[in-house]
């Protein structure tokens, strides 16, 4: 199956080859695009070439050398948006709890029903898709905001916080008229019609942008 850049990709990382292959076979049965990796290191090596379409990682929690948990930590550190589903063996509950604290999306205790697995993958892909959409919106908001000058951005932030023109003028030590001109430019450049719209845009670009 040729990889389609538009489709989400399901990555299965498990050192147990037959089991790994059986999961890929199962995923392909319901139409997912899937790739297998025999170790955490192999996954990391292949990661730069992954298409941007999203997907999820199904990760065996116990593997020689680099373990599943460690891989998750590295992915988080690298800002990966891949949701992670852990597969755990019997007696690995503590590890699973740790994984969830570290931001894993789900965990499945082996042996698991195929439907449970597919449902978890489904959810993870949705999460991934949502994450990708959110990312896209943020990127767009950032792009819009970069069109503003530094003073315009200052004015935009204060306006988004709901301040009136006079208050903005006083805070910035400029005249009311000047504020009015900046406001007009901001509205034009961002295409927003109100202070509320402006606030949403700023928050989309940076959730903490109004603090």
């Amino acid at each position: 199956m040729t990889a389609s850049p538009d489709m989400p990709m399901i990555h299965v990382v498990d050192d147990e080859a037959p089991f790994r292959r059986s999961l890929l076979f199962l995923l392909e049965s319901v139409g997912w695009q899937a790739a297998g990796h025999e170790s955490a290191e192999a996954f990391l090596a292949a990661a730069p070439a992954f298409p941007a379409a999203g997907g999820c990682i199904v990760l065996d929690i116990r593997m020689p050398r680099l373990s599943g948990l460690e891989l998750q930590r590295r992915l988080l550190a690298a800002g990966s948006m891949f949701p992670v589903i852990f597969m755990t063996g019997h007696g690995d509950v503590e590890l699973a709890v740790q994984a969830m604290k570290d931001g894993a999306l789900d965990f499945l205790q082996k042996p698991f029903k195929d439907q449970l697995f597919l449902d978890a993958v489904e959810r993870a892909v949705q999460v991934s898709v949502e994450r990708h959409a959110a990312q896209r919106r943020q990127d767009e908001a950032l792009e819009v905001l970069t069109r503003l000058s530094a003073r315009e951005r200052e004015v935009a932030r204060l306006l988004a916080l709901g301040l009136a023109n006079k208050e903005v003028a006083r805070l910035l030590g400029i005249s009311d008229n000047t504020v009015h001109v900046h406001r007009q430019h901001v509205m034009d450049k961002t295409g927003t019609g109100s202070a509320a719209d402006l606030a949403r845009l700023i928050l989309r670009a940076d959730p903490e942008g109004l603090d």
Partner: protein
Amino acid sequence: MRFPFRALVALIMLGFFTLAAWGAAVAPPVRIGVLAWQGLEEAEIRWSSLMNQLEERLAGRRIELRHFDLAGMAAALRAGELDFVVTNPGHYVFLEAENGVSRIATLVADASTDPAHVVGSAVVVLDERRDITALADLKGRTLAAVSADAFGGYQVMWAELRRLGLDPERGQPRPVLTGFPMSKVVEAVLNGDADAGVLRACLLERLEQEGALRPGQLRVLSPRAGMSPCRVSSRLYPGWAFAAAQPTSPALSRDVLVALLSLSPDAAGQSWSVPADYHPVHELLQELQIGPYAFLRETAWPSLWERYWPWVCGLVVMLLAWGAYTLHVEHLVQRRTRELTQAMEARQRLEAQVHEGQQQMDHLSRLSILGELSGTLAHELNQPLAAIGNYARSLLRRQDSGRLEPTALRQAAEEIASESERAAGVLGGIRAFARKRDRVREAHDPAALVREASRLFAGMLQGVPGVMFRQGDEVAGLQVWVDPLQVQQVLLNLFKNAWDAQQAVGCDLPIEVSLSRDGERCSVAVRDYGPGLPPELQARLFEAFFTTKPEGLGLGLSICKTIIEAHGGGIAAAAADPGPGLAIRFTLPLVDGAASVSRESS
């Protein structure tokens, strides 16, 4: 004058007679016993004239003559009732030995006769018996004689026959005892009651002289020329003896001897002469084992008993003691043997129990290893089962959605098959490992055993650091004589311990195994990079129930020790060099000549 002379004569006569009467009354009679071998009457007739003559010559000593048979005379002598005895040569020799009588004169046929050669015998047959010409012809015939006790009438001839190899006692010839007088013997021969007869020397001549026999009617067998005036078939022996009893005074003996020698020959021409040497008689009696030598033929138990009873008793007591001792020893030996047998049986039972116990212990230890590894074993089984399940579900999904392609079906089926085989393999391994089994010794390549154990170890546990195997050149091609499963068990135990030790310090270096040769053994060392163990605990490591792990039973290494020692090897722990860590080294016997042979034969 006449009166005084007559009176004097009368007085003298009176005194003489009185003295004589007094003297006769005072001097005791001389008691003489004679052997009445032909009957009392005959003896009276024969000896009365002798006694009369003796009485005359003994100055008035009265002579008391008594007649005895053989036994009676001996009894009278013992009772001290006799001063002298007159008896035949054989009986004299007997009395001399038994009662201590001593001869003072020997009876001879006439004065010219040598007293040592007087008594002899003639064996006569009817002249017409041409079939009997010599004594040797008497074998198988009958021989008449007066009495077995008669000296000249039987015993002399008996001795002669014995010298010829004949023995009347065994019926060769068979004796026919006629009794006295000796004329009965002549009658027996004449009327054919006996083939031959024994006569005293000179009786035949006397009978012919008297006309009782016709000369030549009877013939003497094997006549001997010699000293006798008569025909005899035997040697000659001394004649009858006149002997003094032991208490008899020498003076009386001398008086009697003088009287005897001075006697003139009697009517039969017999007279007394100086005593002869009776030694030939002794020899004869000894040869015949009669008279004083009768004891020779009496192997007679009573006499032997009388003589030897203390010895016999002692011997019997010793025999009894020896028998009792032998019985006692035998009993002890049997008891000891029984005890030994029982002890050996008990020991064999015990050994069997120990052997059984050890097998059970091995088995338990294998089970305990399985228990420790059960989590990962479940994982081992779950993996293939899960894969199989995934493939099956996938196929269903694909078919349901109408997207089942033949290549996918083939791929899934192949995977299912191989995974099911893998699961079966895992189960088979567990079964083989957990099975109870008998003691096994086989030749194996130690390197192969280590590799197999490493593979098992890696398969049983996930995330293990791996085993690094080093092998010296001198080990190449060597074979050890072992139970492969037990050695694997030991190795797995050591690997597991090494891994646990390394996990405790978060070390994931590979566990190191090395093989080397140690004399006639192969040495296997397993080394970890764990925290190690202080020397005082290294020694205790192999004790049962000693453990450094919170949840450990402390049996693993003690069982390893049992297994290795059952193989004739040893096991010890030491600090790893260079540290940190612990090295456990054990030895296994190399295959020797005998083992190689049995291996080849099997």
